């Protein structure tokens, strides 16, 4: 049969992996390709083009080569030119930063459940994506988001489990949306691996944990604060984390907004640690006329995983902007290129992930003081327990006790310096907690004064009389 076409066979020997493959040598029906003779510096013996004139252009070698090392071109046609597709389309530039938004709810007083206020806070903060899985006592957040997101142009997905929920929120964040999920203890445990992924890939998102009495299934609808340590140390590897602790329906709203702002500001997952009390509690709260919002910077072309500053927060473009992002949970350089055996890159990355939070402690830390002026003893409290504690402090003061209170609104990074100062200024620090002493241990680490724990682990709101008794008698009974 007359040949009316001729073919050029090119085999890139730098790409060929040699004799353990040789698929092309075996596949070629015409003996065009053959075993190689030259051994490369990598110790491989790449295949060679031995009889190019015999090529019929069947291209089976080109199709099978696992390394795209073979190119067959029809020389009777014009040379193949590679179009310039390596270009980058510019991302829609946005420098991010603070803006004032009108908010989502009517300004003024509202009466609702803490879980609902959390969902409303998210909507006000610009949350446009929610993925979740049902769990008591957090389900009401999901229920409200399922209604509110479609109303506000957002996306709601109920996933098959909490692992998938966390995954979907991270995926949506890289698609450019502010995302959130909410859960309780068992689901929070399942989210841990992907929370670490969010830390490593610097993905802004909000995770709400409405804490319930554990361990394990425990008491599904009953409150506790047993997940404080888990929030920071639950994911492997050891990272800094930001966690906020609301004590009221008002703060379920306000601190959810703040959680979104901090997550966008520092490109981190932010955890809102509520509990079954503030989640299910219904009370009035106030909605302001406007909301201050922070949005991530979307700067095209800049390295998305590194800055000149040791504590810097790099810009974060979204998918589909032509940035060709490389995002990975493996150790990576500033462009996202995996460097899984480079000690310097690992150290620099881990350090920056930590420094960008620790160096901004003042900006993150949030607390309130009560009756601190004459306080000889200070109660350190957080979350719903702080309401019982403040009630007790007032009673104790009625009895002439000079006791004040410091209420933590942010718990991670732990404000050790604030604790140290108040420890120095007082004779005793008292930490009431609905766990076996997670925060009291932290307080002890930072204070030079004696620290007392008032612990209650019966699945009920902290009994304010227990705290009062301690403040008046200086003793407490262990939880039965």
């Amino acid at each position, binding site marked *: 049969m007359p040949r009316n076409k001729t073919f050029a066979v090119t085999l890139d020997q730098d790409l060929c992996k040699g004799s353990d493959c*040789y698929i092309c040598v075996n596949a070629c029906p015409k003996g065009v390709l053959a075993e190689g003779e030259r051994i490369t510096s990598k110790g491989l013996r790449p295949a060679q083009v031995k009889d190019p004139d015999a090529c019929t252009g069947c291209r089976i070698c080109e199709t099978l080569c696992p390394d795209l090392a073979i190119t067959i071109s029809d020389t009777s046609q014009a040379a193949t030119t590679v179009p310039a597709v390596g270009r980058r389309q510019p991302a829609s530039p946005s420098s991010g930063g603070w803006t004032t938004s009108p908010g989502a709810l009517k300004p003024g007083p509202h009466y609702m459940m803490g879980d609902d206020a959390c969902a409303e806070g998210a909507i006000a903060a610009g949350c446009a994506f929610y993925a979740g899985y049902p769990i008591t006592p957090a389900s009401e957040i999901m229920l409200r988001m399922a209604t509110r997101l479609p109303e506000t142009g957002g996306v709601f997905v109920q996933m098959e489990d909490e692992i998938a929920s966390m995954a979907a929120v991270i995926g949506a964040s890289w698609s450019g949306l502010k995302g959130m999920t909410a859960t309780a203890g068992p689901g929070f445990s399942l989210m841990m691996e992907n929370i670490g992924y969010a830390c490593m890939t610097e993905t802004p998102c909000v995770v709400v944990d409405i804490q319930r009495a554990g361990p394990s299934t425990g008491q599904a609808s009953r409150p506790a604060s047993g997940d404080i340590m888990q929030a920071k140390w639950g994911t492997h590897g050891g990272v800094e984390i930001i966690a906020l602790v609301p004590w009221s329906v008002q703060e379920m709203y306000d601190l959810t907004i703040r959680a979104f702002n901090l997550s966008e500001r520092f490109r981190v997952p932010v955890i809102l640690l509520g509990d079954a009390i503030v989640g299910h509690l219904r009370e009035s709260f106030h909605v302001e006329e406007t909301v201050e919002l922070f949005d991530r910077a979307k700067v095209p072309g800049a390295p998305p995983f590194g800055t000149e500053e040791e504590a810097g927060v790099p810009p974060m473009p979204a998918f589909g902007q032509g940035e060709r992002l490389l995002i990975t949970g493996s150790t990576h350089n500033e462009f996202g290129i995996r460097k899984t055996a480079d000690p310097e890159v690992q150290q620099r990355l881990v350090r920056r992930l930590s420094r960008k939070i620790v160096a901004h402690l003042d900006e993150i830390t949030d607390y309130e003081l009560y009756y601190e002026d004459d306080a000889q003893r200070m109660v350190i409290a957080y979350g719903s327990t702080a309401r019982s504690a403040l009630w007790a402090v007032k009673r104790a003061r009625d009895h002439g006790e000079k006791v004040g209170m410091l209420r933590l609104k942010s718990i991670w990074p732990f404000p050790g310096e604030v604790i140290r100062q108040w420890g120095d200024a007082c004779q005793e620090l008292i930490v009431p907690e609905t766990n076996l002493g997670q925060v009291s241990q932290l307080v002890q680490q930072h204070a030079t004064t004696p620290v007392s724990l008032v612990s209650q682990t019966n699945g009920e709101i902290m009994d304010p009389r227990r705290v009062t008794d301690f403040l008046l008698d200086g003793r407490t009974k262990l939880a039965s």
Partner: protein
Amino acid sequence: MGRVLREKYTRQPTPFCPGCGHGIFLNAFLHAVDELGLDFDKTVFVSGIGCGAWVPSPHFQADTLHVTHGRAVAFATGVKTANPDLNVIVIGGDGDIATIGGNHLIHAARRNLPLKVFCLNNFLYGMTGGQVSATTPQGDITSTTRQGNPERPFDLVDLARGAGAPYVARFPVSQPRKLKRGIINALSFDQFAFMDVLSLCPTQYGRANRAKRGYEGPSMIWSMLEHQKGTVAPREKLDSENPEGKIPIGEWYAES
């Protein structure tokens, strides 16, 4: 085409073992992408952990999200629902997608978002040392089933179809042109598409099962490819009878 595909769509050569079946898939996939004219600037590849997951990340010149083990389909669900204009493609291995991530796979099939999921099935865990997976054939040798796998494997086509996937396909890397055609059909399909890509792992699977399977000759991967061709047959030919127990390949569209 090799050079064209490399320069248009890849960042760097792969670190895969010589003759890796995943490389043949990568080749067929890029042929399909080029033929379709898929816009890589509007395409996100999501992949988990394992050799299969390394096909897109860090090799493809597109947005790539390289995530935790088994969760690629779940991450992809977030990416796609948050921005439906993106082409969202999941590529991973049988360990990643069908074993640890099996739950996400069946739920994605049920949910029927227009995701494309390619499971590069090499019948074991390659990267971590050749352990048994949910698709290892019964009796085959792996590093954790030295006496032969006592458990039955998933048939991923049946699994995905049973979960409601409207497009399911199975093609072997030993038939790259059929594979490419299938990839084009999967990528062009307007709903959820799943493909069980019969891949090959010469390093872990080939060596362990060399004696049992009779892989011979100086190029073991070639022998494996030849063997694979002999174990499959178009599903149309097998619909009436299948006396030799061949693995059906082809495409299954849901009757709408």
